[in-house]
């Protein structure tokens, strides 16, 4: 993302300051592995800019000495012995059967390289 610059608006609700570029939308969509048509890129550019503009209200909040909340309730690690368990072959077959392409009990995918 290093090459992309982004400038926040000063106030929400007066003028749409925040603008995301078409190239940015295309770049992020590719990172997220989603194909967008040309019309969709234009639509998303407008919609995401509008949403980002709304988010500038968060700049009003001082969070200098605040810890981020990662769990809304108290949680502890839940551990168990790392023992292999036999899966129900019927379930395995069903799970595999859901994939568009399979071969010899494996999912078939294009080579990565």
């Amino acid at each position, binding site marked *: 993302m290093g090459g992309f610059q982004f400038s926040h608006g000063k106030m929400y609700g007066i003028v749409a300051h925040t603008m995301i570029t078409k190239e940015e939308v295309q770049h992020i969509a590719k990172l997220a592995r989603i194909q*967008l048509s040309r019309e969709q890129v234009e639509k998303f550019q407008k919609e995401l800019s509008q949403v980002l503009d709304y988010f500038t209200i968060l700049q009003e909040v001082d969070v200098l000495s605040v810890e981020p909340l990662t769990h*809304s309730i108290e949680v502890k690690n839940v551990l168990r012995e790392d023992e292999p368990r036999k899966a129900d072959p019927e379930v395995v077959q069903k799970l595999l059967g859901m994939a568009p392409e399979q071969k010899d009990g494996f999912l078939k*995918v294009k080579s990565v390289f």
Partner: protein
Amino acid sequence: MDSLFGVSIKQIHEKLEQREISALELAQLFLSHIQEREKDLHAFITIMPELAFQQAKEIDKKVKEGQSLPLLAGIPCAIKDSILVKGARCTAGSHMLEDYVAPYNATVVQRLREQGVLLMGKTNTDEFSMGSSTENSAFGPTRNPHDLSRVAGGSSGGSAASVAADEVVVALGGDTGGSIRLPASFCGIVGLKPTYGAVSRYGLIALASSLDQIGPLAKTVEDCEILFNALKGRDPFDSTSVDFPSNLQSRNCDPQDLRIGVPREYFKEGLMPQVEQVIKNAIAKFEAAGAKVEEITLPHAPYALAVYYIINSSEASANLARYDGMRYGTAGTKHQMPNVSLLDIYLERRGEGFGPEVKRRIVFGAYALSAGYYDAYYTKAQKIRTLLKQDFEQAFQKVDVIVGPVSPVLPFKIGEKIENPLSMYLVDMYTVPVNLAGIPGLSIPAGNVQNLPVGLQLIAPAFSEHLLFQVGKMFEKIS
């Protein structure tokens, strides 16, 4: 037999035990009503008559043998189509999972099956639960039973409409930012978003894992409580689920012992005046019954919606990475061609399998999580989430429950907001703070504006669902 529509769980239970009706008759009665109402509503994506009949026969056998029945046995129930029922199609409202058949039961479904609940079908939802109206469902919207030109709310709109229209007695939904409470409000029924961790998420198709909870929808607070009690509790398959304190039961309480907080921030810009009037009338009823009502403040509530959409989109973009077109879905057209790369296949299958709102959130989430923006968006959102949680904790030092509107607007027309994502997001402004803080929220019918229902939201501290049920039942009596 028509008189069975709108009756409570306990009444049906009694009729079954007294052999006034058989479970098979119940299943037939409700299935034929579903057939009739679905012409208008489209609350269901899949109807499961075989499963319902099979379960009904098992119950009738028990009755014949003189065995006692669990309270929920024979109760017709709908399940949101983001929750797995073994052997049934589970689409999450997406073309991506159009042909996906669940290989196992969600823990909540397992628990209901053990009680003998009749699972009648899978209900419509916005695609991957992303939306507030079910208009984002790949299979078309659900209509509001009170006005067919309007939305039922979302994302659990099919579940809410099916209960409101007496297609079933109760239903399960999922609530990430209001997806149970909003449709409950729009359809004039009761819906609970439980405390985070109170109900197992195993077998729920994930949207945003730090916010998602499964919960019950019903016609009355009592029925909602009965269903919740069957769902709650720790599950080894969901390590964020916890033991629910069993000593906390709802009981009759005197309104004079009740302290109600009304958050100032919930009555500002954006709240429709007619909705405000219904909510204020409801609060006045509590006051007239003797409850102490005081204004409170949740200073960070106005930031909750922005915080919510950053966290929701970020977690969604990670959770939905699994839909890579290799494990689920159709083969597409490119896979047979030579010189087609893995990247091309990802782009094609995800580009075609997902609808516009899902793409929007995945792209936005990927943006918010990307290098250079992570701290400005995700970390900042998590920090404000801490402040919001503290707001609620401080408020609950002064009051027992917080009361306000569920939605700032009345059920809107189909098509009214779908072209403007931000206007759709704003519908959730009063529900998302509850998910961010991990606390429970209950939507109960507060009144109507003409024929359109308005929901009252009750909010309590974590694991205080019993208080919500207590106060909800109190309101049913005094209203």
